[in-house]
């Protein structure tokens, strides 16, 4: 099918005067890429997005990024590396704890994406608590995230769903209570100091 497409596209190109093997190659490549995109499942599964064992380099890279982000020497954090997009590259899910980021509503959860040799903040969510889950459901190619929200009112807590909108994660109401997913940060027990 890709070959048929390339032949007819090539013929069209010839008709407008563009010739040469390079153009043939280009058209075949574009057609193949289009087909690959067409047949890619739109709904990822957790099998596509597994926790990634991060190298010490990536761990250090995230730590350096967070140190630039928060100068509080008492800060602690939990970093989990997870391929949220199914592209083979893991994103980082961070639970950041310090006096500045925390209150009775919990602390901030950051979603980071690798950007050249550093990271960029895709999302910075306030008043979140563990357990933090990666959900099976996806939005715009990114797995949704479940975070616990409780505190700051006598009302009971609930799990909120963070859904990717193409640029960042936004909280969706109602809660993600019964959504399938995997706990990636269960508690703050494994938090480590951000500074030596």
């Amino acid at each position, binding site marked *: 099918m890709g070959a048929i497409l390339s032949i007819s596209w090539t013929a069209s190109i010839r008709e407008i005067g563009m010739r040469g093997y390079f153009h043939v190659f280009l058209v075949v490549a574009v057609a193949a890429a289009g087909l690959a995109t067409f047949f890619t499942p739109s709904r990822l599964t957790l099998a596509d997005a597994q926790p990634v064992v991060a190298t010490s380099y990536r761990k250090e890279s995230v730590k350096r990024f967070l140190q630039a982000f928060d100068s509080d020497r008492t800060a602690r954090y939990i970093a989990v590396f997870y391929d949220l997009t199914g592209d083979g590259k893991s994103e980082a899910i961070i639970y950041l704890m310090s*006096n*500045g980021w925390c209150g*009775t*509503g919990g602390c901030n959860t950051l979603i980071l994406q690798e950007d050249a040799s550093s990271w960029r903040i895709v999302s910075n969510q306030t*008043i979140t608590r563990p357990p933090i889950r990666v959900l099976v459901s996806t939005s715009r190619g990114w797995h949704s995230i479940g975070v616990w929200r409780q*505190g*700051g*009112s006598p009302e009971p807590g609930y799990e909120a769903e963070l859904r990717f909108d193409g640029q960042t994660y936004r909280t969706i109401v109602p809660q993600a209570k019964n959504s399938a997913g995997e706990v990636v940060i269960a508690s703050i027990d494994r938090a480590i100091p951000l500074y030596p």
Partner: protein
Amino acid sequence: MDCTAQWSDEGPGGDDCQNMFDDGSDDCGPLCGLAGSQNLTPQAEWDTLTPTCQGALQTAVPKTTIGGMVASLNRAFAAQSTLIDAVKGTSISWDMLAAVGIRESAFVDKNENDGAGIGVGIFQISVPASGLTASQAGDLTTAASYAANLLNSDMKTLAAEFPGFTSGQLLQATAASYNFGTTNISGNPATIDVGSAPYPKAPGNYGSNIVNLMDCFH
């Protein structure tokens, strides 16, 4: 409410209120001691509150009856002397502390278990992250002192970082920081509460709600 004339042994200036607590506070409500205030129904007591206070209570303790909201206010009044002691040496007022207690727990001593630790007591202090034990966080005197000092520290931080804040804005920001930290305050007076509870169920309102709750104690 049990304010009866039998407590008139307090003498002139006494508030005719039963004192059930060792801390010198009484268990009476905002009308305690006023002529004719005895044996008021919760509705009657509610009707004496300002619209600002009523609205703030409805926001702070939603899905609660008028009796429940009045009761939370009266529990805070009952702890007044303890709260006054707790704020000594700080820039925090006792009514701010009372308002935080209502917002956090309806001024009820309770424990809140979750993955980030345990929120303990009237001020929902995180254990062990705060450095307090559950027993300390559940003790009103210790917890009130901790909360007052935390708010005082936050107020200093925010005042230094945002010198352009008015006193009202600084108060709101300090209150909001109790819920989501000082770093989440951007410095824009219009967005002080953005990101605080009860977000995302509704726009954040923590700081402004505390300020409005303080009206109940004036």
